[in-house]
């Protein structure tokens, strides 16, 4: 097999991340692509968690392990049922069971005088088990631990060597692993790492936010990297976050905020304010399973309907859902561009899978020119009206204090100047139509779904956002099995573009929720009838194999 799934399992705080980083790095240094992801409980220490590396395969999750390294017995038991047939098991294992027991802690204490070296022993052992040479592991350790004092670093290297030996001794019993070197350079990135970078490049200057998993990393990125030039403030609550960001945007700063479902709920009044005042704003909604607090550290695609319909009253908005870091860069630019041009809020839907997964890409491009400013040139303006009625519904926008022209921004229904109006005969209908004219035009420029192997397909799987890679992989599996499946993937999910879908194929909607939210939209919009919806709602991401199992299980004979 040339697709290796590696699980490192243990308790929070025990070091799975460190071990995983070293081995992933060593794999990349060997020319092997990796897709890494994490799943963990909502706690700081203890519990069961895993760091997962998919080597030499697609950038998509797999829920079974070909190699499973365990850091403690509880984790070994907890993850036992994820082991694939012929899985290589190693590490802290119950005596008398399968696999190669290696007592990392004990060895570390015995040989190196401290349990701190257990992780390097484990990294060595795991590297060995997946066929990495000791040299390349050493290199990865040197890079990962570059900041350690020389003697400690040396001890870590020796520890890894010990682990490497221990595992190689028992490796003969394991199945053969063959991976391909696919490239000489990789960019390893997560979606939440790229969004702030792309936002800064797109011209973002302001972010107010409140910490909430899995969105927190975005605000942290700006705080960590002042060179990006984004003013970032951790505020008292999500209501302050959106109102402060809107204030900044109204005063001419390109602005964003980020949160998860519960925080977004608190922002919906402000979302409506953005719609009414026609103030650009980019809002990242990093989804996690709900309702309420739900499963804070898990993944889901449950907030699509809420993103589309959240906020009172009627106003234009766009909802975009990237599926990988390159998408994230493009979608971020697109979001700022749409926000600027249409003077409206744009929502970017991500989730914990996208926040915590690192994709290896051959390359990753972020445009070097920021998004064009949506601000008008005040010099040409004689007398200014913030909400001047125009054919396309878009009024020339000046920022508060941009020039001598006074800018009036109002959350009440207003006249063209921005003053409160009670004129129901002309002004109110005109302003409603102005805002909805923007929505109509926006619809006209929304991206079409991206087809994948739809040639000759008799069944088409429809996906949006983070489930793309799993669906693509599923199509490949189905096609390899002779089944005429194809896929359509939506990155721009609202408003839906003008589109006619052929009605001689059957459609499936694949999404990370239980009610088939996107499926309902498709039906309302294009009147297609769906053969079925496949929903995942256990907090884990969609994966190709279970998609295949479900569609094959319930597809009629003619199709398969």
């Amino acid at each position: 097999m040339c697709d290796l799934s590696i699980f490192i399992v243990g308790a929070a705080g025990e070091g799975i991340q460190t071990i995983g980083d070293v081995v992933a790095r060593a794999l990349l240094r060997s020319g092997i692509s990796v897709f890494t992801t994490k799943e963990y409980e909502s706690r700081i220490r203890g519990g069961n968690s895993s760091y997962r590396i998919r080597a030499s395969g697609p950038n998509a999750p797999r829920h079974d392990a070909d190699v499973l390294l365990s850091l403690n017995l509880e984790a070994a038991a907890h993850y036992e049922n994820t082991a694939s047939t012929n899985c290589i098991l190693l590490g802290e294992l119950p005596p008398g069971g399968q696999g190669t027991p290696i007592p990392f802690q004990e060895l570390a204490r015995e040989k190196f005088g401290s349990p701190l070296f257990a992780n390097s022993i484990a990294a060595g052992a795991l590297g060995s088990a997946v066929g990495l040479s000791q040299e390349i592991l050493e290199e990865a350790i040197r890079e990962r631990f570059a900041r350690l004092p020389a003697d400690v670093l040396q001890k870590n290297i020796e520890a890894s060597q010990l682990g490497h030996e221990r595992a190689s001794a028992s490796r003969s019993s394991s199945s053969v692993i063959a991976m391909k070197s696919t490239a000489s350079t990789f960019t390893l990135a997560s979606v939440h790492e790229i969004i702030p970078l792309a936002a800064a490049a797109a011209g973002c200057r302001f972010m107010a936010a409140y910490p909430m998993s899995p969105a927190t990393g975005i605000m942290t990125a700006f705080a960590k990297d002042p060179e990006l030039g984004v003013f970032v403030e951790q505020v008292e609550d999500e209501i302050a976050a959106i109102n402060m960001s809107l204030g900044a945007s109204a005063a001419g700063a390109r602005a964003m905020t980020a949160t998860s479902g519960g925080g977004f709920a608190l922002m919906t009044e402000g979302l409506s304010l953005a719609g009414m005042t026609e103030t650009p704003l980019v809002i990242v909604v990093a989804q996690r399973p709900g309702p309420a607090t739900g499963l804070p550290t898990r993944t889901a695609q449950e907030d699509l309907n809420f993103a589309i319909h959240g906020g009172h009253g009627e106003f234009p908005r766009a909802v975009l859902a990237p599926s990988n870091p390159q998408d994230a860069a493009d979608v971020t630019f697109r979001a700022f561009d749409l926000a600027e041009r249409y003077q409206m809020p744009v929502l970017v839907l991500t989730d914990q899978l996208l926040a915590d997964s690192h994709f290896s890409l051959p390359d990753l491009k972020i445009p070097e020119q920021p998004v064009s400013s949506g601000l008008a040139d005040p010099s040409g303006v004689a007398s200014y009206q913030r909400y001047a009625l125009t054919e396309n519904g878009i009024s020339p926008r000046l920022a508060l204090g941009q020039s001598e022209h006074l800018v009036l921004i109002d959350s009440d229904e207003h006249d063209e100047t921005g003053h409160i109006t009670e004129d129901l005969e002309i002004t109110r209908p005109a302003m409603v139509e102005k805002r909805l004219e923007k929505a109509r035009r926006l619809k006209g420029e929304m991206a079409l779904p991206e087809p994948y192997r739809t040639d000759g397909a008799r069944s088409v799987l429809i996906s949006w956002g983070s489930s793309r890679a799993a669906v693509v992989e599923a199509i490949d599996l189905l096609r390899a099995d002779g089944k005429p499946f194809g896929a359509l993937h939506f990155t721009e999910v609202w408003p839906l573009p003008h589109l006619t879908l052929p009605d001689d194929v059957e459609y499936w909607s694949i999404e990370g929720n239980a009610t088939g939210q996107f499926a309902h939209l498709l039906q309302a919009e294009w009147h297609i009838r769906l053969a079925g919806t496949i929903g995942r709602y256990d907090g884990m991401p969609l994966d190709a194999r279970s998609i295949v199992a479900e569609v094959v299980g319930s597809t009629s004979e003619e199709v398969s």
Partner: protein
Amino acid sequence: MIPIDAFKTTAENQWCPGCPNFGIQTALKRALSALDLAPHQVCLVSGIGQAAKTPHYIAANVFNGLHGRSIPAAIGIHIANPALKTIVTSGDGCIYGEGGNHLLHAFRRNPDITVIVHDNQIYALTKGQGSPTTRRGETTRMQFDGVAIDPSQMLATAIVHDCTFVARGYAGDLEGLSALLQRAIAHRGLSLVDIIQPCITWGNHPVEWYKERAIPIPDDHDPTHRNQAIALALEAPDAFPIGVLYEKPARETFGAVYRQQTAGKPLFELQALDPGIVRKRLAALRIDATPSFREPYKGAQ
């Protein structure tokens, strides 16, 4: 000096004839004029309520946002354009009720803005419910047997948070109020001015009642003395000592570090981010396969 007339607007005033809000409107215009601030150098920010309509009646930049949310909006505006004099002018329900948390945390941030509370001790626009400053026992169109809980003490709260300018004004005292607003606006850092503004429609007392209780703070009051200031603040709601309760030298204001980076410019004037920085960040994400290892790699046997 900017003429008062420069602050006229065309918006039809929606207040009740004779409302003391007119006094605040005039005093604020006078203060701006005296401070030589032209309308385009000022941004008035408000929430929703009768008081919150003020920005429509004074020519300036305006952000009339959501009920209770004027303060975060104002802070965002101030950070994005520090050159604008940003002034919140909204109601007691808006700022102490729905928006209480924002004021509380604004004390911590000390942004260089002025917060003017039109304290009529009632929710006027929604027709007369008790506000956070309504006196215990007073009946309203919601609290028919009298308000059963105590009023907020936000001026005292400001003082314990060491807000460096805390004052109380009276809407009926045009001279004193415009002088007070001048000082508040000129102050560097957060300045809070609670203005007693009798509501002649829903209020429980005639204007006279308020006037009698709105007495200037005695000359011997030391506004740098915390305990004295708190004691004065806590005289409300039964009496309203008018003047500056608490004043301290300016301290670091919100966003100071960032403003050093940007030389205090409005953010829309900043240059685009140096593409080199993004390139550097992307490069850091890149991992090259080691040629020596790539070739020999054959997988585990």
